[in-house]
């Protein structure tokens, strides 16, 4: 009998399977790398570049053509005028040329030395242009019979060429963006706000979720309805609920203020989203309100899978309800709680829409993600925005290391 040894090399079947697997994964891989990996690399690239919003359009030469004087009869004289300029005020353009069809029978007077007319074509070579440079070409022309029979000179659109260095693709790097965002106290206050928002938002949502899950962890009539109801904040569009909150807490016509005044809690209207420490607390509360349903759902699912026998055994031993919660439920839930904490921590850290809609990052609520938008679009400094994005990404890498440690332990991934 020959020895039956398992094959050590991958056989043809296994290879085929692997090929199929990569084939099936290819569309996803391609899409994800195109829209996630590539942009991420782009963010790193841009963060080292002095780019502003205006630089997104590369400088181009612009031309306007008109004719001064009337050409109605043979022998009429006029001036054909080309007004040229560099679209950018500070970027040079190299090798600027102009070309335009020259109509038959139009006689040109003295030409600019940069230009020549040959074969029914006007062509000019201007060399390099400084930023903001303007040139006006004036060509005195005389009309003839042939010209008057054809279309006027301004009918053919003039074409211009010229190459400019695009800041985005040049190898011109600067660390100025990072210096700028780390400079001053602003960055540290933004980081502090982010941490406050993330930590308390996450913990709050988790604790509220745990509480809500305990409420619904028994079957009674209407449990399904309540469960659906408690998910509303998470399911509704963020823009709708954010505006509802803004309206509810409006300092002038908000119901919350009217209610508090009527109950005698305050004597004057409170500007919930406009005062310094309060606004941050409010956006954190909004975060908790909006995301407790998610934690609640996960915790409830875990609770319902806990073995019931343990509780019966504990009952026999005379454990009180709080003891049962503390010594039985909580240790069982610790796994899901830690996974949820990390997941929610990262997502809250990434959250942009909520704060952007509620306060726009004003009144001491500017977190890192809102700062990206603020730098890139409000201050139109895309490079600085990208630098903040890089900082966010580095923080996330740090969190993910923790996340995968815990996740591997909990899920056995």
């Amino acid at each position, binding site marked *: 009998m020959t020895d039956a040894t398992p094959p050590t090399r991958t056989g043809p079947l296994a290879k085929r399977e692997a090929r199929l697997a990569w084939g099936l994964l290819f569309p996803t891989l391609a*899409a994800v790398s195109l829209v*996630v990996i590539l942009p991420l690399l782009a963010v790193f690239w841009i963060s080292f570049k002095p780019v502003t919003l205006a630089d997104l359009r590369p400088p181009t030469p612009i031309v306007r053509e008109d004719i001064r004087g009337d050409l109605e009869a043979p022998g009429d004289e006029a001036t054909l005028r080309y007004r040229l300029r560099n679209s950018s005020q500070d970027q040079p353009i190299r090798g600027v040329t102009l070309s335009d069809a020259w109509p038959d029978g139009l006689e040109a007077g003295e030409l600019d030395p940069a230009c020549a007319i040959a074969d029914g074509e006007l062509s000019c070579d201007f060399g390099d242009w400084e930023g903001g440079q303007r040139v006006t070409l004036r060509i005195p022309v005389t009309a003839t019979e042939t010209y008057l029979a054809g279309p006027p000179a301004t009918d053919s659109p003039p074409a211009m060429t010229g190459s400019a260095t695009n800041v985005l693709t040049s190898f011109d790097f600067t660390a100025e963006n990072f210096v700028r965002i780390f400079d001053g106290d602003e960055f540290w206050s933004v980081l502090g706000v982010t941490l406050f928002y993330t930590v308390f938002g996450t913990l709050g949502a988790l604790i509220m979720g745990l509480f809500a899950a305990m409420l619904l962890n028994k079957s009674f009539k209407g449990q399904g309805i309540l469960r659906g*109801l408690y998910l509303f904040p998470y*399911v509704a569009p963020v823009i709708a609920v954010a505006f509802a909150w803004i*309206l509810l807490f409006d300092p002038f016509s908000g119901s919350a203020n009217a209610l508090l005044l009527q109950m005698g809690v305050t004597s004057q209207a409170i500007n919930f989203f406009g005062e310094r420490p309060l606004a941050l607390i409010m956006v954190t509360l909004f975060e908790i309100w909006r995301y407790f349903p998610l934690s609640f759902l996960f915790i409830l699912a875990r609770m319902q899978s806990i073995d019931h026998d343990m509780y019966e055994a504990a009952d026999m031993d005379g454990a009180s309800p709080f003891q049962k919660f503390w010594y039985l439920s909580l240790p069982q839930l610790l796994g899901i709680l830690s996974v949820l904490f990390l997941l929610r921590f990262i997502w809250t850290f990434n959250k942009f829409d909520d704060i952007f809609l509620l306060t726009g990052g004003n009144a001491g609520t500017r977190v890192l993600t809102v700062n990206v938008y603020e730098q890139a679009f409000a201050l139109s400094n895309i490079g600085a925005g990208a630098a903040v994005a890089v900082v966010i990404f580095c923080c996330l890498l740090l969190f993910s290391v923790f996340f995968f440690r815990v996740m591997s332990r909990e*899920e056995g991934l």
Partner: protein
Amino acid sequence: MRLLRHGLLAGPILGALWALVVATTVAVAMSLFTGDAFRPALAGGLLAGVALGLACLRFGGKQRVLIPLAVALVLLTLGGLAGIGPLEIGEDSAPLAAWTGRVATLGFTGLGLWLILEELRPGALTRHEFEEAVIRFLTGFGYIFFTAIVLIPFYVMVMTSLKNQSELMANPLDFTIDLSRGAELFRSYSELMTEYSFGRYLWTSFYVSVLTVLITLAFAIPGAYAVARLRFRGQALFSRSILLIYMVPMIVLALPIYIAFSMTGLRNTIFGIVLIYPVTTIPVALYMLQGYFRGLPAEIEEAGLMDGLSRLKVIWQITLPLSLPALASVSLYVFMIAWNEFLLAFMLLDDPSKYTLTRGIASLNSSEVPRQHLMAGSVIATVPIMVLFLGLERFMTKGLTAGSVKG
């Protein structure tokens, strides 16, 4: 703690706390419903709570119904005649509203305490009995609290959309609807539909979301199947990195996408939006689906393979029909993400004729547009997703939990 474990002490304390909770709830609810001045009264609340808390203790026999009922009636007359009660009611409120408030407060306080203190005797209590009562109190409080915080913003949203600017400013608490206005009530909605072309936004949002779902599924199903079933090098690494991608913040990606779209002219096109939305949902859809595929018995598929089906046919004829519930959950979840998406629509769409619903609502947020229009827009965006969600709640909750974390 030990001192508290006596029925004659625990009963009144829980009673007082519960009475204050109920009084506050009723005051807020009545204020929001009628616009009249209701406020909880501390002294009256404490008095009613203590009295009812004592009355609801288990003295033995049938008194557990009669005594609380008698006490409640006494308190009710006291409130009605002398104005001493857990609620302070403004002079100008309608008698009907005032009495509804009083009866509701005392009724719910009594009923709640009757349930909370069911096991409590007026003597020394075991730890078990005491904690049971505390937990019942917390449960009752929890139901009220969560229901209130969830419902109030939505209530305000709907009611505001039915009112007009001057009414809103005059009394922000008055959410009563004048039914005699008839169809006039829905003026904000009809104006949105006619003047602000919300009908078109609704349609755009709908087809963008549906396309997103279809494209996402087309990408995620094969990918998820490969990760769940096929053996290849890097499989473990792959199933991990899917989640990692989901953790990249959108704003970090939005910046280069904005630049790229500006340069290629894809900004301000629905095509660009449809191009970008699925990519944000593919990783999570893939993760959810692969979790489900793993749970399916491989034997059925192997039987199919033995019978001469190709892998792709196996997926199409065996795996997919078996995973219809998961596909429904994933579709619903992806639809929800696409429907609610705000950031990308906000950054990439400037042309009002191409707005999605969320972008359209954002454009209403200006001082020139009345507030009720903004709220009507919010309602228009919220209702479809809520209807879909409540109708398919079973799939939704399963879908939300299934992929992410196994129980």
